[in-house]
């Protein structure tokens, strides 16, 4: 093969549009550093996008706009409902779905480019694909299609179309890595000689699609925050690879930013669970069922009622609410927000303690509570709020389990040992709103529930929170 690179020429307007667009994208992310500037960030991102697309539409290679405009229209028609009517509780699955779309686009463009390079009549004869471009195409297609099916699987699990439980079998990692290895070998063969090995391109697509599915099969719901972030990163990288294939700086920058963002969030999520990437992807978490109980003495928990809890809160000076995925499942965020409002009105200091992996995606709890009109200065991160539990009179845990488990700090045999957790047990009184004593998703028992200063409020999170509001209001009217 001739190692000449296809010469893509951009007009000056395109160049300027891409450079300005890329700068706007960076600025857009920079302004996401605080809620006050975030919307400005959004608008500058939109401006960058419009500019880059406008620049592209002026590309001299385009001869026919019909299909472009049609696809614009269809995409917009599907995009608007996905922006406007998607419930905030559905954010994790929506995000997974959009990773899938982004990755699919990259995979399709990579496929088109591969066949394009094989047809000399499309690009003036002698120009052919060089090794680096072929490497970029291979990476783009592999990452694009595996992220596509992987994200669709994650979507299925989050939307509860598929079972959320991790599905594992013997030799799973071996099979998964085997599939990946074959795909990588194909990429290498395509780099060596794309023309002779062109029949292998379709198998590459198929293997990538299969690998994406197999990668997510063993992953459980509790690991979704990390997995979503990783898929975000892969989608970004496939976009950057597309940038290399098309020699487009704007795509490289955007893909790189997206990849960096996803990678950064995955690192935070992994740290918040004290686990490594390999452990998340190949560990089959949730399968580690703590084998305890038989030889231990019967542990006793205390059951309380909303009336008592309301009285305790009435007498409190500070209350910390600890939300978890259970709050999202029960759609309890509005009732919980009502409770916080009532407490605040009474002059009680209310804070929400939010663990980085609470929920099913990064920042999940914050969005739900913001939707329920909780002011963002009441939403505290773990490091910030942990020292405050000691001074706190009442802590209320709503649908959170592992992130409050003190065994992570003390019990070396615990599967979550070493994971940073919220110091809920230090509060003077702890109430745990929970459906039953069943251990949480990961099947790990929580010693918090058996402490002397802990009382259980059994029931649906939304109903219990509602009863707390009612009981608390009754107390208020008694005082006056």
């Amino acid at each position: 093969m001739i190692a000449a690179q296809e010469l893509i020429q951009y007009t000056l307007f395109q160049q300027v549009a891409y450079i300005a667009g890329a700068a706007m994208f960076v600025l857009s992310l920079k302004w996401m550093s605080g809620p006050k500037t975030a919307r400005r960030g959004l608008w500058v991102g939109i401006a960058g996008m419009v500019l880059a697309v406008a620049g592209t539409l002026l590309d001299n290679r385009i001869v026919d706009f019909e299909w472009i405009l049609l696809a614009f229209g269809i995409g917009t028609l599907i995009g608007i409902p996905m922006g406007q009517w998607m419930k905030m509780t559905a954010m994790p699955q929506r995000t997974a779905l959009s990773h899938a779309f982004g990755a699919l686009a990259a995979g399709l463009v990579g496929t088109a480019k591969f066949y394009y390079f094989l047809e000399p009549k499309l690009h003036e004869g002698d120009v052919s694909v060089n090794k680096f471009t072929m490497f970029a195409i291979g990476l783009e297609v592999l990452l694009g299609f595996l992220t596509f099916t992987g994200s669709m699987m994650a979507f299925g699990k989050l939307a509860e179309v598929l079972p959320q439980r991790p599905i594992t079998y013997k030799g799973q990692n071996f099979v998964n890595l085997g599939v990946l290895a074959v795909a990588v070998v194909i990429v290498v063969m395509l780099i060596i000689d794309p023309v002779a090995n062109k029949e292998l391109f379709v198998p590459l697509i198929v293997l990538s699609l299969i690998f994406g599915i197999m990668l997510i099969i063993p992953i459980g719901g509790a690991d979704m925050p990390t997995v979503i972030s990783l898929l975000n990163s892969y989608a970004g990288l496939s976009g950057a690879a597309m940038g290399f294939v098309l020699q487009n700086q704007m795509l490289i920058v955007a893909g790189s930013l997206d990849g960096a963002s996803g990678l950064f969030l995955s690192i935070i999520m992994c740290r918040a669970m004290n686990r490594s990437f390999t452990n998340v992807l190949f560990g089959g978490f949730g399968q580690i069922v703590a084998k305890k109980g038989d030889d231990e003495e019967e542990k006793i928990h205390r059951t309380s009622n909303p009336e008592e809890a309301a009285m305790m809160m009435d007498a409190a000076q500070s209350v910390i609410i600890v939300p978890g995925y259970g709050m999202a499942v029960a759609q309890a965020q509005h009732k919980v927000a009502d409770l916080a409002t009532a407490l605040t009105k009474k002059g009680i200091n209310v804070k929400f303690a939010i663990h980085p992996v609470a929920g099913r995606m990064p920042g999940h709890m914050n969005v739900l509570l913001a939707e329920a009109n909780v002011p963002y200065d009441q939403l505290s991160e773990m490091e910030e709020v942990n020292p405050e539990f000691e001074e706190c009179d009442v802590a209320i845990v709503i649908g959170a389990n592992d992130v409050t488990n003190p065994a992570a700090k003390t019990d070396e045999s615990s599967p979550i040992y070493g994971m940073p957790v919220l110091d809920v047990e230090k509060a003077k009184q702890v109430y745990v709103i929970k459906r039953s004593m069943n251990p949480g998703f990961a099947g790990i028992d929580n010693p918090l529930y058996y402490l002397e200063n802990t009382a259980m409020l059994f029931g649906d999170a939304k109903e219990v929170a509602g009863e707390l509001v009612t009981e608390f209001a009754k107390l208020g009217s008694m005082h006056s």
Partner: protein
Amino acid sequence: MSRTLIAAAQELANPEGGATIDIYTGLFIFVMAAFAGMEVIRRVPQLLHTPLMSLTNALSGIALVGSIVITGADYGRFYTTLGALAITASMINVVGGFWITDRMLKMFKPREKTVPAGDAK
């Protein structure tokens, strides 16, 4: 100055005179953008991690730029179809992503000083 402007205008009129990038420039851009991205994103608080993800999702819809040329150039039915599908997928991300990010960001409000916010439902 005016000479530059004229040259610029000529360049606009004559697309053949544009620039291209090589592998090394591309890698350079990639690495620099990744570092800039990391620095910028590190400063995004946990509070905004969900909107951050939906925003980067929308921005990754810039794949449009790649799909548009493939769709519009006269390569053939096969390429037009793949390109149009890619445009559709990217456009969903762009429109839906920006839209929902805006919806989310509108919800983040600071504490009001004059309290009674009413019993929001």
